[in-house]
Structure formats: structure tokens, C-alpha cells
């Protein structure tokens, strides 16, 4: 009996480590492949069959192509514009809404809450939204991917819940000292809510960083394309030609392949460098988000 016990313990350990090691490998390898391919010599990469364990030769031609492409740099620029103004507006409006809705004894708050939550389940759909954005004159302006998404209702609810958990007594004493709602909001609620605000910044930033769909609908001018939309052109619609313009046709095809991988690196490595630092906030965020459910 005792012996059996030991064996089953051991086999569980082996199983756990084996499965997890496999998972690590499967998760990591595609990224390594991209990294190897991006610095490989184009002709060798195209001729190669099977897995890559090291770069094939070494060449930075692809990266030169990527940085010569004005689209990528402009894309980064546009994305930063959207991030800075978008996330600021997100925080400001979501904070205001969450504050007002977290007040007690304000008679219309329940009604507002219903009106707001309803929008999570009902929406006009794509075309009516497009017509409204067009109607207010935002088409072909970067604000078109900022204003219509100024508040995420889900985030508003998370923030409201956080504000509600702040003890009333703090505000009461501030009120006695003659503070109005603005003062209470900026001097008491905001400083006490830094953790949830950090999570909100993260949520909104990831949203904005990843966004391409509405940009593809609202922005016709390619100069306004955010990074992800530029990436879509290169990675999915396959337009690497512009970046390999100096090369002959055969070379164009070959270098086009490595350019794709280099593009993935250029778009992803900065994010993966930031990620270890924000990881703990993400964990916190996952829990904040779950409380609501």
C-alpha cells in the first residue's frame, strides 16, 4: 500500500512536469521561430524546410526594410496619439461617471445605472454607429477611435465598485470642512483608488494598443492608420513590396518573407519588454474584474 502510494505520487509529478514543459515549449517556440527567421538570410530561409533551431546566416536587411517603411513609424506615431489622448479621456470620463454613480442618496442614480448597463446588451450595431460617427464629423480623424469608445461600461462598473468601498466617513469630514464634489473626487477618491486606476490604465491601454477594427472602418486615409492596421496590411494583406523596393522580383519575394517576421518583432518586442513590469497589475486586474461577476 505504502509503495503504491509513492509510485502514484511520483507519476503525478512526472505527468505534471512533462505536460507543463511541453506547454512551455509550444508557447515559446513560435516566438523563437519568428526571432530566428527575422534575422535569417532571406534566400536561405525560403529554401529551408522544417523547424529552425538557429538563424540561417545573419542579416539585418529585413529590419532595414521595416524601418525604411514610413507606414510603421507613422503607425507608431498614430497609435501613441490614440493611447495618450484616448486613455486620458477614458480615465477622466470613467472616473467621473463612476464617482457620480457611486454616490448614495442621489435619487436618479439607480435610473442612470440601468440606462448605462442596458447599453452593454443593446447596441445599434455597426452601421448605425458608423452613421453617428459620420454625423458628428469624426470620419477620417484619429478622434473617431477615441470619442466613441470614451467609456467602457464594464470598466465603469469595476471603478464604481471600487469607489463604493471607500469609507463614507472620509467624505463626510471633508464635506464638513466645506469641500465640494470636485474636491472630494480629486483630493480623496482618486488618491485612494490608485490600484484600481492602475488597472484601468492597463485595460484601456491594451484595448487601444490592439485596436484596428474601428480604425479600418472610420479611417480612410492611410496616413492616419494606427500601428495594428499597418501591420494588418503587411502581415495579412501581404503588401511587403513597398519595403523591398530596391530588390529584384525574386529577391522581393524572398526578402518579403523575412520582412514579415521582422515586422512582428518590431511590433511585439517593445510590448514583451514592458510586460514583466505590468504583469502583477494584470493579475490584480483579473481579480478586480472577477469580483463583479
Amino acid at each position, binding site marked *: 500500500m505504502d509503495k503504491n502510494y509513492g509510485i502514484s505520487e511520483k507519476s503525478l509529478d512526472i505527468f505534471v512536469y512533462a505536460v507543463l514543459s511541453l506547454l512551455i515549449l509550444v508557447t515559446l517556440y513560435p516566438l523563437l521561430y519568428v526571432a530566428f527567421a527575422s534575422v535569417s538570410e532571406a534566400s536561405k530561409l525560403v529554401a529551408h524546410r522544417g523547424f529552425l533551431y538557429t538563424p540561417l546566416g545573419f542579416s539585418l536587411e529585413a529590419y532595414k526594410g521595416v524601418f525604411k517603411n514610413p507606414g510603421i513609424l507613422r503607425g507608431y506615431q498614430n497609435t501613441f496619439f490614440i493611447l495618450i489622448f484616448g486613455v486620458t479621456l477614458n480615465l477622466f470620463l470613467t472616473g467621473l461617471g463612476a464617482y457620480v454613480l457611486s454616490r448614495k442618496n442621489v435619487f436618479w442614480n439607480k435610473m442612470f445605472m440601468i440606462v448605462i448597463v442596458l447599453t452593454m446588451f443593446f*447596441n445599434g450595431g455597426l452601421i448605425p454607429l458608423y452613421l453617428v460617427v459620420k454625423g458628428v464629423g469624426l470620419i477620417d480623424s484619429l478622434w473617431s477611435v477615441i470619442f466613441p469608445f470614451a467609456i467602457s461600461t464594464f470598466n465603469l462598473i469595476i471603478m464604481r465598485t471600487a469607489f463604493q468601498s471607500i469609507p463614507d466617513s472620509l467624505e463626510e469630514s471633508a464635506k464638513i470642512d466645506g469641500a465640494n464634489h470636485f474636491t472630494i473626487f480629486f483630493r480623496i477618491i482618486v488618491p485612494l483608488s490608485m490600484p484600481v486606476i492602475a488597472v484601468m490604465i492597463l485595460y484601456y491601454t491594451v484595448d487601444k494598443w490592439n485596436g484596428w477594427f474601428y480604425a479600418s472602418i472610420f479611417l480612410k486615409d492611410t496616413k492616419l492608420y494606427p500601428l495594428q492596421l499597418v501591420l494588418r496590411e503587411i502581415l495579412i494583406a501581404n503588401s511587403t513590396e513597398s519595403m523591398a523596393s530596391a530588390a529584384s522580383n525574386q529577391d522581393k519575394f524572398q526578402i518579403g518573407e523575412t520582412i514579415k517576421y521582422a515586422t512582428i518583432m518590431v511590433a511585439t518586442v517593445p510590448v514583451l519588454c514592458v510586460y514583466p513590469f505590468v504583469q502583477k497589475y494584470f*493579475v490584480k486586474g483579473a481579480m478586480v474584474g472577477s469580483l463583479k461577476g
Partner: protein
Amino acid sequence: MRDFAINKYLYLMMLPVIAYYVIFHYAPLYGTLLAFKDYSPAKGIAGSEWIGLANFKDFFTSFYFWRILKNTVIISLYTLIFEFPAPILLALLLNEVRSKYFKRVAQTVTYMPYFISLVVICGMIVSFTNADGVINNVFTYLGYDGQAMLQKAGLFRPIYVLSEIWQRIGWESIIYMAALTGIDQEQYEAARMDGASRFKMITHITVPGIMPTISIMFILRIGNMLNVGFEKIILLYNSLTYETADVIASFVYRKGLLEFNWSYSTAVGIFNSIVNLALLIIANRITRKISESSLW
């Protein structure tokens, strides 16, 4: 009156928030009238002619209706069956790891793909599944024929679901890991005293311990059933795979924004919302019956 004096800032603060909801959430609802009209841009929404339910009739009787409904439901079910349990299993596995270092490495690595943008993920999928991509290279090496996998209708759903798991498993396991830390350690001590094996502890303590979290996540998931990741579908599908890949949302997008059938597309969009809402209500009922936890 004194109350108004104190609260006037409150009203002022709410103003931009109300403006936002009115303009970008409630104004579009007016646009849904399009579904009942024969829209012509020159006449505007109000000026266009009423045609009643003709758009809906067209849709329900069209060849596409069953196809996209079926695809939407199947892709949702696949993700529910295969992608939903994956992070739970990962959390259970991680929970059995005794080396802190290995656990940390495993977590850090599996979270990573979540931080890569959807467009880049899809770009990688496209490159890897190409006729001369790495996956096909390996298959060719093993003696199978290489083929552009994204052009095979039969392969779309497996590619979709597997890549979902790849990207989300680590991230989604966080919530279960958090739930695991909430389990009372004394229960394990007691079980060990009674001679329970680790496997027994998993099935009798660990799994029941995270069951409430699982059921909440399950409800949330079902509530979003029909909101399948249509952005990903739009990035990955093509006319060769519409048969298995086209869902309601991608159909709305194509009809409305690529073919400019605005009225028709809006009607299909309304149908999507109604089905979503119905599913949410049904799911909430079911989960309330079986697990006592529910959304409302």
C-alpha cells in the same frame, strides 16, 4: 436647495458622461430604424421609405441564414468545450508544481502570448500555415502533402480554436490560480492525515474549491456566446472558408461595410442582438438552477 448647491458639481460632472452615452450608445439605436427601411443616403434615415420586415424576411429565407447561424453556434460551442476548460486544467497543473522557480517560469511563459496583439497573432498564423510555412514544412517532411491550411474550409475551426487556447490559456488561468489560493490549507492537512493521495485531493478538495469561480466564469462566457471573436475571423477567413468560418458578425460587416447593404446589414445586426439576449437569459436561468450562482 442647499442640497442642490452642494450637489450642483455632481450634476456638472455627470454631464459629459450622459452626453457620451446619449451620442454614442443611444443615438445609434435610432439608426436601427434602417432595418425597416429601404435606405438611400440621399434621403437620410428619416426620409427613406418604410418597407416593414422585408429585410428580415430576405435574411431568414436566404441561403446564408442557416449557414452563419450554424457557424456562429458551432464556433461558440467549440470554444466553450475546448478553450474554456484549458485554463482550469493549467491552473490545476500549476498548483501541483512544487518547485517555485519552475512554476514562475511556466506562468510567465504561458501569459506571454496574451500580450501579443491580435493582428500579429493572426499574422503568425497566416505565415505558419502557409503552403511553405513551418507547419506544412514539417508535415511535408513527415510525408504528408503541404497545403495552404487557411484555404481549407475543414481546417478553419481547429486553427481558430487551437490558436485561441495558445493565446489565452495562461492569462485566463490567473483567475483560477487566485481562487486556488483561497482554499483552506487545513483541508489538505486533514486529507493527508486520512491517507488521501494527491490525485484524491485534487478531485475532492481542489476542484470543489474553485467550483464557484468556474461557474461564474461559465455564466459570463455563455452570456457572450455569440460575440465570437469576429475580429479574428475577419482577419483569418477568405472566400474559400466562408462555408465554415462566416459568422453573423462577420456577415454583418461584409454586407454592410464592404457591399453597402446598410439596411439589410442592420437587420442582421438586430437579429444578432436578440439572439444574444435570449441566450444570456437562458444561460442565467440554467446556471441559477444548477449552481445557485447567477448574474442577477
